[in-house]
C-alpha cells in the first residue's frame, strides 16, 4: 500500500483485489487490468425505442459499457431503466444511472431489484441536477436519500441481502456500483475527501466530469492516490470532444465546474469552421493519450452527447480498438 502507485492496476489474483461480485463486464475487465472504455447514451424525449437502438448500434464494439442517463438536467426522457433494457437486448453492457432527485428510497430500491432482474449489471449513483434546470421546474423534489447513501444502499442490498429498513431480500441484486465525481468543482480541497466518502460507502468505480485541464486533473489524481483511493475504486477519466469553437467557448464560460484552458479555445478558433470538428476529435484523442499515462487512471468515459457516431473513431485513434472479448 505504501509504494508509489503503478500505471496499471495489478493483475487479477495479485494482492489488493476483491473477487468479482457481479456479471458486470466492466468489473471483469478492470479486474484483469484492462484499460476500460465507457460511453454515454441519452434516451429520447419520447417513446421511440428505435432512437435508443440506433445510438446503441453506433457504439457497438467500441466500448465496454454504456451509461444511460436518468432524466438528465431534470428534463423528462424515456426512463433510464427501460433504455438500459433495450440496449441489453442488443448485446451491449448498459450502466444504469440513478438520480436521487425524483424517487424516494422505496422506489429506488424497487428499481434496483428490477434492474438486476432484467440483467442490468451496473449502476451509477448520482444526486441529480436540481429540477429548476429542466422542463418541469414546478415539480416537488424528493432527495429522500443522497448519492452516497444510495451507494450504501446498493451495497447493503447486494452484500448483506437487506433492504434499508432491515428486512431480508429474497434474491439479492448483483450490481457493480459506481458514482460520478467532478475534480473541478468547488471546494477543490475536499474533492478527494468526498471520493473517500464514496469509497467508504462501497463505491467501486467512478466516472469524472470531462477533463480539459490536465494539470489540474493530475493534481487531483495525486490527492486521490495519496489516500490510496485509486486501488479499490477505479477512476475512469471523462472526456468530451469539441464539435465547434463555439461549443468550447460556451463550455468555458457557461458551464459551472468546467475548466477549459485558453490554449484549447485558441486551437479550436485557429482552424477554419469546416475543420473544427476534426480538431476537436484530435484534442480529445491527445487528452486520452495523456490520461493513460496518469497513475491511478484505469479507463476513460467518453461523453459525446448527440455525437455518438464519433466515439468509435475516437476509440480507434486512441489505440483502444478492438475491445477485448470476455467469456
Amino acid at each position, binding site marked *: 500500500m505504501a509504494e508509489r502507485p503503478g500505471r496499471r492496476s495489478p493483475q487479477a489474483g495479485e494482492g489488493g483485489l476483491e473477487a468479482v461480485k457481479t456479471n458486470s463486464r466492466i468489473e471483469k475487465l478492470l479486474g484483469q487490468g484492462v484499460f476500460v472504455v465507457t460511453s454515454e447514451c441519452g434516451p429520447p424525449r419520447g417513446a421511440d425505442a428505435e432512437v435508443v437502438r440506433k445510438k446503441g448500434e453506433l457504439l457497438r464494439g467500441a466500448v465496454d459499457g454504456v451509461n444511460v442517463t436518468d432524466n438528465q438536467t431534470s428534463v423528462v426522457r424515456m426512463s433510464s431503466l427501460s433504455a438500459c433494457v433495450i440496449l441489453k437486448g442488443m448485446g451491449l453492457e448498459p450502466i444504469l444511472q440513478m438520480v436521487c432527485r425524483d424517487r424516494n*428510497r422505496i422506489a429506488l430500491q424497487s428499481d434496483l431489484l428490477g434492474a438486476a432482474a432484467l440483467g442490468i449489471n451496473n449502476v451509477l449513483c448520482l444526486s441529480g441536477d436540481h429540477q429548476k434546470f429542466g422542463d418541469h421546474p414546478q415539480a416537488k423534489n424528493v432527495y429522500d436519500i443522497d448519492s452516497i*447513501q444510495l451507494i450504501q444502499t446498493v451495497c447493503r442490498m447486494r452484500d448483506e441481502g437487506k433492504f434499508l429498513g432491515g428486512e431480508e431480500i429474497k434474491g439479492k441484486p448483483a450490481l457493480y456500483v459506481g458514482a460520478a465525481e467532478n475534480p473541478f468543482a468547488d*471546494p477543490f480541497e475536499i474533492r478527494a475527501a468526498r471520493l473517500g466518502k464514496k469509497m467508504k460507502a462501497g463505491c467501486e468505480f467512478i466516472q469524472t466530469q470531462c477533463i480539459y485541464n490536465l494539470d489540474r486533473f493530475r493534481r487531483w489524481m495525486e490527492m486521490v492516490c495519496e489516500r490510496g483511493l485509486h486501488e479499490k475504486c477505479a477512476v475512469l477519466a471523462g472526456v468530451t470532444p469539441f464539435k465547434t469553437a463555439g461549443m468550447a467557448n460556451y463550455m468555458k464560460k457557461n458551464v459551472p465546474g468546467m475548466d477549459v484552458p485558453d490554449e484549447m479555445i485558441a486551437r479550436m478558433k485557429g482552424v477554419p469552421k469546416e475543420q473544427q470538428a476534426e480538431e476537436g476529435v484530435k484534442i480529445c484523442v491527445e487528452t486520452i493519450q495523456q490520461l493513460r499515462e496518469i497513475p491511478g487512471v484505469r479507463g476513460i468515459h467518453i461523453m459525446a452527447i448527440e455525437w455518438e457516431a464519433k466515439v468509435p473513431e475516437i476509440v480507434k485513434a486512441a489505440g483502444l480498438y478492438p475491445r477485448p472479448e470476455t467469456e
Partner: protein
Amino acid sequence: MIVGNRKEFGEILEKLGSRRRVLVLGCNECVTVCGVGGEREVGVLASELRLFWQKEGETFEVKEHTLERQCDYEYIDSIRPFAGDYDVILSMACGAGVQYVAEAYKPQLVIPAVNTTFLGVTLEQGVWSERCQGCGNCILDMTGGICPIARCAKSLLNGPCGGSSGGKCEIDKDTDCAWQLIIDRLTESGQMERYEEIQPVRDWRSGRDGGPRRRVREDLKL
C-alpha cells in the same frame, strides 16, 4: 421568526371579491419583525384598500386592528365584540394564525393577506434568510451549526454535489452553497473529521413526511 411576503394587491382584491366591509387583522410578533403583517403594514394595506375603493367610487368600511398574536386563542377571542360586524377578516398573520382565526370565527370568511414562507433570521434590517424547516431531528452540531436540510437546495446530508461553484449553489448565483459554508465552518473550528463520517439515511418521520405534528406537555396542562 416566521417570515412571509405580502400577497400582491391584485390578488387580495380578487379574493375579497365584492365584499367591502373588511377587518384587517395584524399580528405583533413574527410578521411584525419581518415587516409583513404588523400594525404598520395593516395600516398600509388598509390605506391602499381605501384609496382604491374611494377612487372606484365604492362604499366600504375598512377597520384596522392588531393582536399580540393570532396563534393563541385568548388574543383572538378579544375581537369577538366587533368581528361579526365585517363581511370578511383579512388576516396578515402567518398561516397558523389565519387558520386559528378561521376556526375561532367560523363560518365567517377569513382570508390570508400574507404568503408564509420560512423560518429564518434577520441578516440586517430589511433582509431575512431561511434557516430551518422544522425537520424534527436537529443535527446542527454535526454540521458546524449550519443546516444542510434547510440551506442546501437538495437537502444533502453528505454534500456538496457537483454543482457547487465559487461557494454558490447551482440554482442561483446569490444562494450560498450550504456545504461550502459547512466545510468552511468545520475547518475553522477544527472539526473536519466530522466531514469524513458518512451521515446515514435519514428518518423523515419526525418531519412533515410523517404527517401533521402535535406536541403535548402534560405538566403544563391546567
